[in-house]
């Protein structure tokens, strides 16, 4: 092992209680919490300072967003079952469940695109109002996170899955790390974005 390269080992380090990849993903998620925390703080600042703030229900499509919420929840559950399949050495279950998870993610993006399109058709752009500016910023950034997660999951489902034959423990760990990220993206929508933008 040459100097300067962090080895990808599945074993936990005694000093941290995690292996490098797990610690790395948790640190990354902590930075993501700060990123979206800053955006949420901006939202509060803009809302408190605004003379008029529209109700999300009056502008946004709540039934569609609710459906999208449950699609994301389903996607996260499918990732858990995909990981469980690998833990039980059931590669077929992994393939099916990960495919379902990715399809759910894609469906979320398609519905989000449809929602955006409907806004644009009605002349509602980020420049229209402060509410729409923060709405498009936060949901757009979240959609970029979904796209990033789909790329990683797609790789693990497709070409990356060859690793399961050579080193199943290592591959299972990769899916676990990707799953943690996917859960974070899902929870971000369910806990923060959907209630704050659509319901409050």
């Amino acid at each position, binding site marked *: 092992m040459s100097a300067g390269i962090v080895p990808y080992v599945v074993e936990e380090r005694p*000093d941290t209680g995690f292996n490098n990849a797990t610690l790395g993903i948790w640190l990354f998620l*902590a930075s993501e919490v700060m990123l979206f*925390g800053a955006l949420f*703080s901006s939202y509060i*600042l803009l809302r408190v*300072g605004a003379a008029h703030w529209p109700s999300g229900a009056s502008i946004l499509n709540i039934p569609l967003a609710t459906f999208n919420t449950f699609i994301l929840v389903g996607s996260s559950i499918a990732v*858990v079952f995909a990981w469980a399949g690998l833990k039980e050495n059931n590669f077929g279950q992994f393939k099916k469940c990960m495919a379902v998870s990715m399809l759910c993610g894609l469906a979320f993006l398609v519905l989000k695109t449809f929602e955006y399109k409907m806004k644009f058709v009605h002349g509602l752009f980020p420049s229209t109002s402060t509410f729409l500016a923060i709405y498009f910023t936060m949901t757009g950034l979240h959609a970029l996170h979904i796209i990033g997660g789909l790329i990683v999951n797609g790789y693990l489902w497709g070409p990356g899955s060859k690793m399961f034959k050579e080193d199943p423990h290592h591959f*299972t760990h990769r899916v676990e790390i990707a799953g*943690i990220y996917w859960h974070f993206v899902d929870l971000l929508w369910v806990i923060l974005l959907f209630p*704050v933008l659509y319901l409050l």
Partner: protein
Amino acid sequence: MSANTNSPSTSQMVGIYSRLFGLLSVITLVGIAAVYFFHIPVWVAMAVGLVLIALKGTIVVDSFKQFMVGRNIIVMVFTMTGIFVLGLLLLPVLNHSDRLVGTQDISKQMQMETKEGGGHHGD
């Protein structure tokens, strides 16, 4: 989902995640029902919404708590993250209570300068 040998078994993990997402789904439905269908006043809706957000956050932290036991580094990281986010959330309060350079004062000042036709922005 954890590789730790001391962590719950696969079936237990699936149960934890299923329970977590099930609870979040139910709370989300309650929030939608409260805000969208019952047409409650805005301030009540905001209060209900914030309580539900806090409840969801608590459930998530509770679900992941057992993975953090004995792993002080990640507890420290997320404690620091929490403090930082709390600081960010307090910024609007600080801004709102700042009577000298609050955003409303700045906008009033800009309007006055526009009316005067000067537009002098300091020396």
